[in-house]
């Protein structure tokens, strides 16, 4: 059961956590936000988004609450937990290290 993955494995988790670090959002808003911020470069497929959200929820990094959305409909809002915040920090640090390293290599060679 292959999953469509447009993003580097594990990066989507980081992006979701980062997106939720400011405020709680529902799935649609998370996808839209990533799309907008990245200047339409990153397209999050639903087939990756929802499994990722549910996985993070099972992990206890994000929690969900049903609340009224901007259109007045009930929607599932995700927010970071304390553990999720820690996870975000460590993953962000990881990412920075990795991307710096890659950048260095790209410049040198």
């Amino acid at each position, binding site marked *: *059961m292959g999953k469509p993955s447009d993003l580097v494995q594990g990066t989507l988790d980081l992006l979701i956590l980062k997106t939720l670090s400011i405020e709680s959002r529902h*799935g*649609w808003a998370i996808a839209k936000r990533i799309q907008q911020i990245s200047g339409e470069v990153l397209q999050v497929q639903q087939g990756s988004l*929802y499994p990722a959200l549910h996985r993070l929820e099972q992990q206890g990094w994000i929690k969900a609450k049903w609340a009224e959305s901007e259109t007045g409909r*009930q*929607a*599932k809002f995700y927010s970071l937990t304390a553990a999720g915040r820690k996870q975000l920090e460590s993953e962000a640090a990881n990412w920075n290290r990795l991307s710096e390293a890659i950048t260095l290599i790209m410049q040198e060679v």
Partner: protein
Amino acid sequence: MRWTHKLRMRLQTLFLRGRASDHLQDELQFHLDQQIAENVANGMSPEEARSAALRRFGNPAVLRDQAREAWSWGWLEFLLRDLRFGMHGLVRTPGFSIMAILVMGLGIGANVALFTVIHSVLLRPLPFKHPNRLVRVYEADRRTGFHDNIMDGGSFAVWQSQARSFEQMAIKKTVQYDLAGTEGQLPEVVDAELGSWNLFPLLGVQPALGRFFSASDDRPEANATVVLTWRLWKRRYGGDRNVLGKTVLIDAKPYTVLGVLPAWFTYPNARVQLWTPLYHERSAGSMQSFFSHNFDVVGRLKPGVTIDQANAELNLVQQGIRKRFPEGPVNDAINIRPILNAETYKVQAGLYALFAATGCLLLIACLNIANLLIARAATRRRETAIRTALGSSRARILREQIIESLLLSCAGGAVGFLLASGILQWMIQARPDIPRVDSIHIDGIAVLFAVGLMLVCGFLAGLVPALSSSGKHILQALQESSRSTSGGRSGVRLRRMLLSLQIGLTVVLLIGAGLLLKSYRHLRSVDLGCATNDVLTMRINLPRGTYKTGTQMTAFYERLLERVRSLPGVKAAGLTSGLPGDGQGRDDVYHIVDHPPLPPGVVLDASTRFVDPGYFHAMQIPLLQGRVFRREQQLELVPEAVINEALARVQFAGEDPIGKHIASGVSDNDETYEIVGVSANTLEDVSGNPRPTIYYSISVGSARTAALAVRVAAPHDPLNLALPVQKAISGIDPALPVTDVLTMNQLINQSTGDASFSATLVLAFAVISLLLATVGLFGILSYIIEQRTTEIGIRIALGAERGQVMHLILKDGLRPAVLGLVIGLAASVEVARLLQSMLYQTPGLDPLVYLIVSGTLLLAATLACVVPAWRASRVDPMVALRKE
């Protein structure tokens, strides 16, 4: 806190799965609606917006499944779904399911039962402290190669003082006692053990009540004491604590009850009712003798000492004893067996052979079910192909098939478990001679074994067909199903192979059963050398207390015979200390006075039988020469002996034994006995050879146990006379219990019970396997013909004879049978070699058995093939061709 959150999530996803599922649905719907709203906002019509959104969104069902996969317990959900699918599949075809469950149940049940017996009897340690250090010690003889002889008291004393490998050694002997109360309670004959005082401490047993013997109880001059087993205490004394210190009558002498053994203590077997101290019961002289071999020795090795070391040390000690007694029946070696092995080695081969047979049966059951499942898979090829085409993964289909067969094997296991407890109950009834039979029960390990079997069988039976129905040729399968001219060839080839294997195993079982049966028939047709029909036997035991002297005993025997002979229907009656076919009894050393002295180290040994003069006539043992003792001499000590042919032929080759003299110590003072007659041989063991035997007059003997043999006039049932004879006995001595009331034929049945049991069971397994194989053959051939109907139709349309078609199909069906037969015959040669030790006068390669088995198998195979073949030859070409 994270783990509490995770736990809550896990519990929620487990128990609130339905709600979570609804929520997921809502969540995805919301996303879709947002997309539609956006599309509308971008200026699409609602219709357009919707289909564009859906296009972008993808397959909602797949998306839902992908999200669900992130949930915990996903495996459980899939498992439950597959289980449900499997159940549906099985319920849809109840005939198949029931058949498969029963076949599997039979295989698992038989195996669990046999495993339980083997584990309980042969493998589970005896319930003593450090059982791995407990051993039994036997005397052995280098010259004759005999190595399980019972011990003499003299050698035992030497061992005890010299052997360093042992922490302790104890000695015991099995006897029968008359047990009675001091207040006129009913007497009974009980199995009892005489044991040295240190036996219980050696085994590490604590009394449940009172105390065990002390060293001072275990002397000839001590007061008579007894320890009761738990069973006897419960049964005869109602579990009354006040029995301690009370007096009971054993062989009409008073014994003080010292204590009660714990309930679990059933050593050496559960029939033993009481224990008395050996050195009190037997005279000091007899316990010091090096010549009378009567006792069992139990030892506890020192920690760290191996059996080999103990063996080496004790062998030296025994060789020293032999040097002191170069003449006389003193053995020159010893043999040590671990205690568990010593108690059970006699039934070991038989039980393992039966276990192997049940193993074959289970394998056959698995193959049969695999075969059925392949047939099912074949009929579902199209379904499988369509599902594969629609994206169902191969792993999923494989998993479903294995789950289906696991379901079958689990249901079969449940049936088998019930069956096993039934089989065990029956076995315990049918085979009381198995040692430790009382300890046979299904325990945790047996349950584990059953579960293990279930899983292995399930995987085995499921994996083979699952792998055979590979999804590689979807297209081919889809095409085939529309033109079934040569459908599923690969499946058929696999089924044929499995069938050949199954038939091979069946042949092995059939041949094993055939050999065992033939051996049993040999055993049963053995001529004991005496009358066996119309003979009633029973055993009496004259207690020491009432019958103090030989004269009293002889007088009783005389009166008894007189009364019994006068009963209507009785043709003849006699007494003996040991009946033919009842096993080896007492034997003694003798020499022939008229012959030159024997070279040092050589001793003559013969079985000793005390009989009354009428015994030979009553048992129809022919007298070859001379005469029997004279009846009128019966009350005197007759210094005469009758020898049997086996002794006469060896010791008196070329001379007349009549008038020669034998010297032996059968009575208390060394006597010589004049040989007055030679009788024909009788057998002590059904499977043995005639042993040299000397018959003395019963008045000579100190035989307290005697068997009464009564031959009845032909039309009478010997058992009908049991009551009148017992009445006659109680007419003389009402306190005298009678045991083992059996006809001669029943007695032989008892001693051949082991052989008959194994033979019958293996035969039953073989017949079941044959039936399964036949059904399998029938099934596969019917299936092939179904597949080839069109082809056959064309052949007939083109002018093939019906006979030719039938011939073709028969050949097709018989090929796996013949292949299986060849495999089976080859395997049987090896199996027969393993069975050889259980076979009596039957060669492992008995041609008749092999011939009959081959014939039976081919006949059964032909029968299974004839019906489908005949049906094939009746195919109407028009119907067959229009079928598609």
